[in-house]
């Protein structure tokens, strides 16, 4: 359990350090995800008979965190309370832009994925 936390936080820390070092517009945690993926690949290559990752402490921790991912957005979401003036002046236009743009993005992304997949996997 503690070892799994050290692994997650260690990957994040390394990701943050690399992101600062090479000034990439990528957040540290995303680089940390890539690093952990690399470690899992290494582990698979070194000991193919090791238990699959779902059956390790890391697997349990990851599943638990991801199952409650929505909760983690509540503090940032409550920040809407600070945006009163901007939302008052541009609120309607911004809401229309967010709703229409997000619907379009969902449709285009899902549609292109499905069409290309059908074409590739035929």
């Amino acid at each position: 359990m503690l070892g799994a936390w050290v692994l997650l936080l260690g990957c994040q820390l390394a990701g943050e350090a690399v992101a600062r070092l090479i000034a990439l517009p990528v957040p540290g945690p995303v680089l940390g995800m890539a690093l952990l993926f690399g470690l899992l690949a290494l582990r698979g290559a070194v000991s193919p008979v090791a238990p699959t990752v779902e059956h390790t402490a890391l697997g349990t921790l990851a599943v638990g965190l991801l199952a409650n991912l929505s909760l983690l957005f509540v503090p940032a979401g409550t920040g809407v309370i600070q945006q009163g003036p901007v939302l008052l002046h541009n609120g309607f236009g911004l809401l229309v832009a967010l709703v229409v743009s997000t619907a379009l993005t969902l449709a285009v992304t899902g549609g292109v994925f499905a069409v290309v997949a059908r074409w590739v996997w035929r």
Partner: protein
Amino acid sequence: MSLPVLNGLDVVWVYLAASPLLWLTLTLAAYVLADQVAVLCGRHPLANPVLLAVAMMVALLMVTGTSYGTYFEGAQFVHFLLGPATVALAVPLWHNRRDVARALLPLLAALLAGAVTAVVSAVGIAWAFGAPPSVLASIAPKSVTAAIAMGVAKELGGDPALAATLVIITGIVGSMMAGPVLAGLGVHDRAARGFAMGLAAHGMGTARAFQIDPMAGTFAGIAMGLNGMLTAAIVPVVLRLFGL
């Protein structure tokens, strides 16, 4: 006539309101309650637990006259877990690596089309409504994870705090609309659905995708990571097209 009990409560409140414990506990309690409501509604897309919990917290802060800064001192412990949770996405990604490799071509095509659509449509519509340049720069990265969106907005003359708020609203709106929009289009493939949710609505779309299915969640996590990088590159170009 004085009321010693009420005075006592006053003292307790003054102490608790300033301590991280109160707002941390209330954030967790609000989410547990909101999630119960969502379950009671059969996880209907409109009963979004984040939206409900945020509404409860905003109402509570306003009623008690608490500043966001004081609130965040407690809530930061929850907020902090976003980082390790993002790293944890590597676990389902590794588990589903063969399906991901097989879907590389559709994945890259959808990434490019979706990223451009997200930025151009958001900036275009807000521009048509007469939003000022600083607001346009804040809404342009609305589909990517807050950390990247805030950096991009700041770089291009936007307001990072506004960008974060627009990101969260996009996440809520996207989680609510994903099911109906994709089903309406006849997109039923779990990978395609998850990818669209992560691309359009970052971590909140990913959270919603994990509620549907681990495979959908995996593709959502990939979309979130890749779109974050691509959007950071696209936004300056699009803003220049709009003469900013």
